[in-house]
């Protein structure tokens, strides 16, 4: 058995360590437990020995599952993870494998009923296991947004990075986000470009034309006596912040200081009192945001004074040594470099800058030694003759490549002890919160709370969540959460057949996406009930989409809210986006749609089809006549397929009034659409509107499903069995608050898995 030999030793060891722990905890069984165990040994264990023992016991068990210990312990609740898995495999008939003798259906059902009954008794009273999130690398969106918020440059450097792998339906899962060499290489190149943009390190003096005005002194300086202005032409490269500098000094006289004004064209940039004297000219600088192109840069001497009758000094003059323009600087530049450096304050200023960037980039106060190490790089660059900004830039580049920036680090005192639970510090909490709702780093308000330790005080968390959901940055939650939950991202690659759907074009593709994003955003920002996702009587359309939906009197490209009567549209299930990504290129797929509803609305994904069985729709010998529905129903006669397809297909049939790109129809290939259906359990519906009502009646299941998806996204890890009670709590909080969007977010943020963490390793 060649694959049995490849089971890593570590897993076997881990299993036996687990065994010991469980045995220790379960030392004192109650009378009830004793009875159950006896029952288990008598009725359940023999079934598993008979049907599973061949492969899943002994020294080389298959699939890393060794049943011996579990069977001996006979404790379904303590070993629930294993028994849940066993139950799933039996339900889906994946096990025993088809080449092995199969248990009788009645026998199987009896055993499953017993196990499922025990599994359902889940005690939420005990202490919650917060689980453990693997260190999370910033994904592409998070990287882009973090750079934007850290340095004020928004040019999506991560768009060039390889795409992030997806696990549990999302691309922000710590375990799945890997760091191959190509990515580090991209980080290195990106850091260089980012630094250049943020600090303008590649900028040179843009004054290249001759300076005119005044009289030239020895050494080239210009003195303004009778002629009161020097000027030059500059060519600026594009709109942005520019720094205008003038090195000057005054010959003071009279009772005023020398005053000068810096103009760009006819616009005053800034007035200065010039205190500097001949022995020590100073640099004066003014900033202005302006357009690119040709401009005139001038310095005007404002208070000429010459009284030859008075005793000396009686002649006030302005002397201009030179003019410089640097730019364009990004909007965040002055936030990074708050002051002009001088030879004296240089290293002190550098320390201040590095200290501030490090703390923000690492999302926590900088640690001893950290700043010194960055400064060593700054000094290295200085020694090599680089200018101040470039030197700071080198330090910044190192910060942007540091694992403390690229990963969201949450360090534990006991990283390998699964029992060591701790509450996150407020910097960690602020960081989790901001990446959850903004896919980006915390802003100053969150940092301020973290510094003062007030984030958890009173209702501060609720306040912050409301503030954050209303911030434009929450668009990240729409694009990244909704984009993946509803699979809107797949719309980009959907390829409806041009002949079948001649109406489909890029404008429609983009409108479809917009509709659902705006709809989600409305529920989020207006704090509506999440049940609106099922049947909210409104949506957002522009002319293109309105035409597709047959909504009259909508003109123009911009989207607007429209009220719906709920007959044809209402809720995401009737959005063209969702209907398109769940279709085949040439036709609708009731199976895909049904599966989509089970997975993303009801949270009860069907097990995958058993291996080697062709998908229902395509089975050999299909009768090629009749409607799609008729053809498919013939196959549902097969018992092994019917179990799951009876759950999936009716849901899909209920949406058959929508074609492969979400257009309304009553006929398909000359056959009248029959959108009615019966769900397992006997509940029936007559069409899409009715179906939605059925789904809405199952609002608890929907709330739980959405909560689970949102929790996965918020934590960056898969939701585990141990999170079951947390999901229940969140669903209850939603129910108690009319399913308001914010109630779900608040409940997630307040939950133990979000607030706490523990060491690595499994625990009972």
């Amino acid at each position, binding site marked *: 058995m060649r694959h049995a030999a490849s089971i890593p030793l570590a897993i076997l060891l881990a299993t036996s360590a687990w065994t010991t722990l469980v045995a220790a905890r379960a030392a004192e069984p109650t009378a009830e437990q004793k009875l159950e165990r006896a029952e288990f040994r008598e009725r359940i264990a023999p079934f598993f020995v008979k049907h599973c023992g061949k492969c899943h016991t002994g020294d080389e068990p298959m699939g890393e599952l060794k049943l011996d210990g579990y069977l001996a312990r006979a404790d379904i609740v303590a070993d629930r993870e294993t028994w849940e898995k066993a139950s799933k495999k039996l339900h889906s008939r994946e096990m025993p494998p088809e080449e092995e003798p199969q248990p009788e259906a009645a026998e199987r059902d009896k055993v499953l009923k017993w196990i499922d009954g025990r599994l359902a008794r889940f005690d939420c009273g005990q202490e919650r296991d917060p689980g453990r999130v693997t260190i999370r690398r910033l994904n592409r969106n998070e990287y882009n947004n973090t750079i934007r918020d850290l340095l004020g440059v928004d040019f999506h450097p991560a768009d060039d990075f390889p795409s992030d792998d997806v696990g549990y339906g999302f691309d922000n899962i710590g375990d799945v986000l890997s760091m191959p060499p190509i990515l580090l290489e991209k980080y290195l190149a990106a850091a260089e470009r980012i630094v250049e943009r943020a600090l303008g390190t590649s900028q040179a003096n843009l004054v290249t034309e001759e300076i005119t005005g005044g009289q030239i002194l020895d050494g080239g300086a210009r003195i303004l006596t009778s002629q009161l202005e020097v000027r030059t032409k500059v060519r600026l490269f594009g709109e942005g912040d520019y720094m205008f500098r003038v090195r000057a000094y005054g010959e003071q006289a009279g009772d005023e200081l020398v005053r000068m004004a810096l103009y760009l064209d006819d616009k005053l940039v800034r007035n200065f009192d010039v205190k500097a004297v001949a022995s020590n000219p100073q640099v004066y600088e003014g900033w202005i945001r302006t357009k690119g192109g040709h401009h005139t840069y001038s310095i005007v001497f404002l208070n000429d004074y010459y009284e030859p009758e008075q005793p000396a000094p009686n002649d006030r003059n302005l002397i201009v040594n030179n003019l410089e323009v640097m730019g364009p600087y990004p909007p965040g530049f002055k936030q990074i470099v708050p002051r002009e450096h001088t030879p004296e304050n240089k290293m002190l200023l550098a320390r201040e800058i590095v200290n501030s960037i490090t703390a923000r980039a690492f999302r926590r106060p900088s640690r001893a030694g950290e700043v010194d190490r960055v400064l060593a790089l700054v000094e290295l660059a200085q020694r090599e003759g680089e200018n101040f900004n470039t030197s700071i830039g080198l330090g910044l580049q190192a910060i942007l490549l540091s694992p403390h920036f690229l990963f969201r680090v949450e360090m534990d005192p006991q990283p390998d002890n699964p029992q060591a639970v701790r509450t996150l510090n407020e910097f960690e909490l602020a960081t989790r919160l901001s990446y959850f709702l903004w896919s980006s780093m915390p802003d100053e308000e969150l940092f301020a709370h973290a510094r003062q330790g007030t984030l958890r005080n009173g209702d501060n968390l609720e306040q912050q969540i409301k503030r954050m959901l209303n911030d434009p940055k929450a668009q990240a939650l729409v694009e990244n959460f909704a984009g993946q939950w509803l699979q809107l991202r797949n719309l980009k690659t959907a390829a409806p057949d041009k002949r079948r759907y001649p109406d489909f074009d890029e404008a429609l593709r983009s409108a479809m996406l917009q509709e659902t994003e705006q709809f989600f955003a409305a529920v989020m920002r207006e704090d509506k009930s999440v049940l609106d996702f099922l049947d909210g009587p409104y949506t957002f359309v522009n002319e293109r989409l309105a035409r597709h939906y047959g909504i009259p009197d909508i003109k123009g490209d911009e989207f607007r809210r429209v009220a719906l009567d709920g007959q044809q549209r209402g809720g995401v299930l009737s959005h063209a986006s969702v209907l398109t990504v769940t279709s085949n290129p040439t036709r609708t797929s009731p199976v895909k749609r049904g599966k989509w509803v089970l997975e993303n609305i009801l949270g009860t994904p069907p097990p995958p089809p058993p291996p080697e069985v062709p998908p229902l729709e395509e089975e050999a010998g299909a009768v090629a006549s009749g409607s799609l529905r008729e053809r498919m129903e013939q196959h549902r006669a097969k018992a092994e397929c019917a179990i799951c397809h009876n759950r999936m297909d009716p849901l899909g049939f209920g949406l058959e009034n929508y074609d492969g790109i979400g257009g309304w129809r009553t006929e398909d290939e000359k056959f009248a659409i029959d959108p009615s259906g019966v769900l397992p359990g006997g509940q029936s519906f007559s069409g899409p509107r009715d179906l939605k009502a059925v789904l809405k009646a199952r609002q608890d299941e929907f709330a739980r499903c959405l909560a689970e998806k949102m929790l996965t996204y918020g934590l960056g890890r898969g939701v585990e069995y141990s999170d079951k009670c947390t999901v229940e709590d969140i669903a209850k909080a939603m129910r108690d608050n009319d399913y308001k969007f914010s109630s779900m977010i608040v409940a997630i943020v307040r939950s133990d898995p979000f607030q706490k963490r523990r060491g690595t*390793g499994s625990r009972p």
Partner: protein
Amino acid sequence: MTKPWRISRRTVLRGLGTAVALPLLDAMAPSLLLAADDKKTIPNRMAFVYVPNGKHMPDWTPKAVGAEFELPYILEPLAGVKNNLLVLSGLAQDHGRAHGDGPGDHARALASFLTGQQARKTHGADIKVGVSVDQVAAAKAGQHTKFSSLELGCDRGAQAGNCDSGYSCSYSTNISWRTDTTPQAKEIDPKLAFERLFSIGAAGAARTMREKFNKSVLDFVLEDARDLQAKLGAKDQRKLDEYLSSVRELEKRIDTTAHGPGQPLPNYPVPSGIPDDYAEHIRLMYDLLTLAFQGDLTRVATFVVANEGSNRAYPFIGVPDGHHDLSHHGGNEEKQKKIREINHFHTTQFAYFLDKLSKISEADGTLLDNSMIVYGSGIGDGNAHNHDNLPILLAGRGRGTIVSGRHVKTEKETPLNNLYLSLLDRMDSSVESLGDSTGRFDALA
């Protein structure tokens, strides 16, 4: 068997006194450049090209075995390079099969294709499969080149949802695994791939201004990472391992480029991004692969033409349906015909690549002679999802070590990894075993 490697870029540059826009194709013509002091030998190259969802096997497998065989419909486009081709029938990748893990043949097909190991069934918590053959070669043969290996593709990773029956999307989008838990992400944008190869544009920025400081920066972050790693839990440490090993790879690259000659730009227009036309996209990637091999920028590469389970439509060849939907043809003839056309389309592009390689002279032969290009799928027939009797081609002669122009039928269930062991031998990267290999594949010569 070694021949003098006459093409030294250092010599080229010395001779021309410039590193700017050297037309690589011409400059590499061996007759022009004979450097007596050059002790290098022409290297062998290795590439793996993956096409998903299996093949329509009746139109793939030649009827006759041996040197006298006719190319069936799907292989027809390869007529021009038939003598450089081995059609290998009967190979199996056993770990594409469930082995108790249930459905998920597509994810397993790609994950096992170059590893010969069972992908652990997980949505993401504990991804694990095995080191892939290309990375085994990269670890050794990759030491000599700027890039130890090159990973190309045409499809982005999945953007949302689940990919295949409880398997993380990592498995169905990545073919190359640096460690058993770290997939090598692929570059899908020809522009970015070009810029990276030739160190220009955004990707090449790091070479310019602060190049002299890169080492100091990497030293800095290495120290950060080592310090951090020591304080983390076991699982987090693995992530830092990936980070550290990537930093080292980059350091190595900086060392080689710092001491080696500057990289001449090939006489090839810089691609402008991902073309709308799929065929053009594929061809651009093949061009880049050719340039990379030709300039000895790497000797090991993988190219995933489409992710496993791809449901791409091919309306431009009259197939508006999704590839995966079609592959479950259930014996339907019309669907099989369409699959055949998709398969034919892909071999047409592959033929373009081989033709290119065969027109580049190297020493006494061609670049194709000094390469070993594996082309195939980890699924036999898309309807059956079988993982034996896989459609596999081996193009090139591995520096004269492979007798091509034959159709070889192996014993049933011969592990695909046996072939890989023998290819690794030819890359001076021999290993005792790889994945489920049971021995060498002795039918190559």
